């Protein structure tokens, strides 16, 4: 199977190169045969990479230790689910997984555009294939997943214990899906620049791709945060680690893009800006991969230093220079005749929203690379960690939340003061009242107070928006409140799905404020039978139970949690020792409620004295971070849901072109 995998990767590389030629030649010569052939090559390329994936999975599942990758990232005792997930637990496997996703998405784009967008699609597919060539070349020549090992070990080194967690089954695939799917809008943007077809056809062709990418970037970041929360055992979920930052930056830029693209769709403005944003989002995904794999910056996530850095950096530089050159070359025809007439307009609000989002992305980028810069300029190694990012991004986040409330309720083109007062009176009162209530409750941190006030302000704007929409439907159509709500969302899914995403963001934001400012941390050593207090809870250490199997040894403490006289939970934090890599890990016990999470870590134990040391965190509102994430996911699904009216509008807009194309192009697969 390993030889088959190797062969499949080599063929995939050839097919990628051929598809570029066939697409470009077919487009230039207007040859349907070549374009069809290019599509077939793309689909065959995807099939080849799928075979390579199957070959590596086969090696992992059968513990084929003749393969270096399997011997380094698996073992005979590793549970089957982690044998499957170990495919993306190491350098070569994760690159193969990336390439697989890329070829799948390229195939889907080829299928979607077999009759659509005849002028830009071949070039877009060629750009996607260029990206595929880079990754396939890495797999064929630099970091080979099917390299043999000699002598063949009897047992594998096992998967990193931190990766033996169910969140690792879904966090990397989600994040990679988000990263890789951003290639599609980037490629269509590049194709629009190459061909000079700079209307918004490329945006229409890739709107769902962009939302899809954003959706998975959101999930990937949230799953990663949840993984850190459950596995790393320090009571937090976000450490501003360089690799976390690398995943966060494309999300920020993609968020900016999804907002500014609305201005182009509606007002035919910001063409250069939108093309720049999508190029930046893609470049940041490559930058993230470079960070993870170059060893330039130390990170808890980094793969071992592999020598891949220069290749990724070169690719990144080529992408940035080529794309910037195209943007400059086409800048003359990208100017928009439309104008922004007022600061008090939705266009202006969206522009400032973009400024803050990209500003935060820049702050994160700057903080991430500053240690490298400092070492290069001063020769002094420094660290840029959470205090920096929190101080810089904290005020910017408040500004962003404020704009999130302003944007949707302000009118296109120009608002009058009367309109503003009418739209914002209730949200402002709600925000100020919330601040006052939280203040009276004893909260004194200005950031927390401002954050809760702004969250309430944004909630107010969304409530006003929904209330008016529902009221109008009830008035005009005589619908019940429930039906009017359902119809309002269903008929205007982009708009109201977007509001649900905003609700998710502010709910998550409230969770972040609560968990960041009001966390209680108690560390205590107690003998079995003794208790200690954490906030309103009493933690009673009962006993320690040890067990072992072929894979791990574990020590699990039993802890009874009471509040007053009431027993609220029996928790089992523990320590796990992985035999093969000889590494300890933490098994955290979490009791989650909407008000607070009780997070218990067994920090150490001494069997001789029957003593255990616990670190306990009582973290308010962190539940709402995950709940907000769920709401964001639901909102995004609603936004992506096919809308009959929108389809009709797009079909009408594309009608002429599509009819012409259908008339001239053979059926898929036909000659």
């Amino acid at each position, binding site marked *: 199977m390993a030889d088959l995998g190797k062969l499949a990767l080599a063929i995939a590389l050839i097919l990628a190169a051929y598809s570029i030629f066939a697409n470009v030649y077919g487009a230039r010569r207007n040859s349907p045969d070549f374009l069809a052939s290019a599509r077939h090559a793309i689909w065959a390329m995807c099939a080849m990479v799928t075979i390579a994936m199957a070959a590596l999975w086969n090696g992992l599942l059968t513990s084929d230790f003749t393969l270096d990758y399997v011997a380094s990232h698996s073992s005979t005792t590793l549970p089957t689910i982690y044998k499957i997930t170990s495919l993306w637990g190491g350098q070569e496997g994760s690159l193969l997984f990336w390439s697989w996703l890329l070829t799948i998405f390229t195939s889907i784009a080829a299928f979607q555009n077999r009759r659509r967008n005849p002028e830009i699609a071949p070039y877009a597919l060629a750009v996607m294939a260029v990206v595929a060539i880079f990754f396939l070349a890495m797999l064929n020549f630099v970091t080979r997943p099917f390299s043999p090992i000699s002598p063949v070990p009897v047992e594998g080194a096992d998967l990193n214990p931190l990766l033996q967690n169910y969140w690792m089954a879904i966090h990397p695939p989600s994040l990679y899906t988000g990263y890789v799917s951003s290639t599609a809008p980037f490629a269509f943007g590049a194709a629009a620049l190459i061909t000079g077809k700079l209307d918004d056809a490329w945006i229409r062709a890739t709107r769902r791709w962009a939302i899809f990418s954003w959706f998975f970037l959101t999930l990937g970041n949230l799953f990663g945060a949840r993984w850190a929360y459950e596995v790393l055992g320090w009571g937090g979920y976000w*450490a501003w680690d360089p690799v976390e930052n690398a995943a966060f930056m494309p999300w920020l830029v993609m968020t900016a893009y999804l907002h500014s693209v609305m201005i182009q769709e509606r007002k035919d403005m910001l063409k250069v800006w939108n093309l720049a944003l999508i190029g930046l989002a893609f470049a940041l995904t490559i930058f993230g991969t470079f960070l993870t794999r170059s060893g330039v910056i130390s990170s808890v996530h980094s793969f071992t230093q592999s020598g891949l850095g220069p290749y990724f950096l070169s690719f990144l530089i080529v992408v940035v220079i080529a794309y910037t050159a195209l943007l400059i070359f086409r800048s003359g025809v990208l100017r928009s005749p439309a104008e*922004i*007439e007022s600061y008090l307009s939705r266009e202006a609000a969206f522009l400032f929203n973009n400024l803050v989002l990209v500003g935060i992305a820049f702050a994160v980028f700057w903080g991430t690379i500053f240690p490298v810069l400092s070492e290069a300029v001063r020769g002094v190694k420094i660290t840029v960690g959470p205090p920096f990012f929190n101080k810089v991004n904290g005020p910017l986040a408040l500004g962003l939340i404020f704009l999130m409330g302003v944007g949707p309720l302000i009118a296109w083109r120009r608002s009058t003061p009367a309109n503003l*007062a009418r739209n914002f009176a209730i949200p402002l009162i709600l925000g100020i009242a919330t601040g006052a209530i939280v203040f009276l409750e004893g909260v004194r941190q200005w950031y927390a107070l401002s954050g809760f006030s702004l969250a309430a302000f944004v909630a107010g704007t969304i409530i006003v*928006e929904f209330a008016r929409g529902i009221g109008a439907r009830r008035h005009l159509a005589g619908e019940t409140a429930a039906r009017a709500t359902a119809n309002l969302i269903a008929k205007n899914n982009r708009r109201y799905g977007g509001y649900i995403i905003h609700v998710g963001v502010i709910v998550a934001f409230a969770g972040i404020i609560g968990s960041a400012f009001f966390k209680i941390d108690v560390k205590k050593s107690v003998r079995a039978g003794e208790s200690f207090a954490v906030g309103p809870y009493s933690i009673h250490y009962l006993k320690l139970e040890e067990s072992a199997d072929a894979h791990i040894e574990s020590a699990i403490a039993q802890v009874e949690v009471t509040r007053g006289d009431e027993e609220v939970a029996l928790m089992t934090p523990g320590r796990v020792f992985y035999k093969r890599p000889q590494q*300890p890990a933490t098994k955290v016990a979490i009791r989650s409620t909407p008000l607070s999470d009780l997070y218990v870590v067994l920090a150490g134990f001494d069997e001789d004295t029957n003593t255990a040391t616990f670190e306990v965190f009582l973290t308010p509102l962190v539940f709402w971070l995950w709940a907000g994430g769920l709401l964001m996911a639901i909102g995004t699904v609603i936004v992506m849901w096919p809308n009959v009216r929108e389809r009709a509008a797009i079909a009408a807009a594309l009608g002429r072109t599509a009819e012409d194309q259908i008339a001239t192009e053979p059926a898929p697969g036909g000659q």
Partner: protein
Amino acid sequence: MTLRARLRPVQFLVWAVLTACALILVEYSYSRQASAGERLTVARITEGLTCQCGCGLTVSNCNHPTCGFAVPLRDDIDKMIAKGMSADQITAFYRRKYGEKILSAPTTEGFNLLAWIMPFAAIIAGGGLIALRLGRWRTAPVQEAEQIVPLFDDDLRRRLESDLKDGL
């Protein structure tokens, strides 16, 4: 008569925003006082120090239960606090011992100042560019007199009417 009816809309907005700002300022000054009197804890100091075990986290957050760096450091800091040392003294002690790399944020002096300034400078520059551009857009003559796009209610009303006409 309601408050909104008594005040003109602009006045209402201005007062609302000013009230919000005043509230934030009062809260900010309270919070400054609160943090000045806040009890010095190991966690507060170790948040500002980076663990040198390779975890990439702060000493406060290092996830290795038996970390050879973070665990003894936390104990030492506990003893320093008990001796009456201030947060600045403790941080300065570790900076002398391990160099700047132990600080989890750049200092605010010399080249490091760039780390703090650049993000805000970039945003201010970007904001300035937008303001300039907006100014140019606003002064440019409008090609044709158009009715200002109606606000939310009318917009929504049109869409709803269209929905209903389509039988959706």
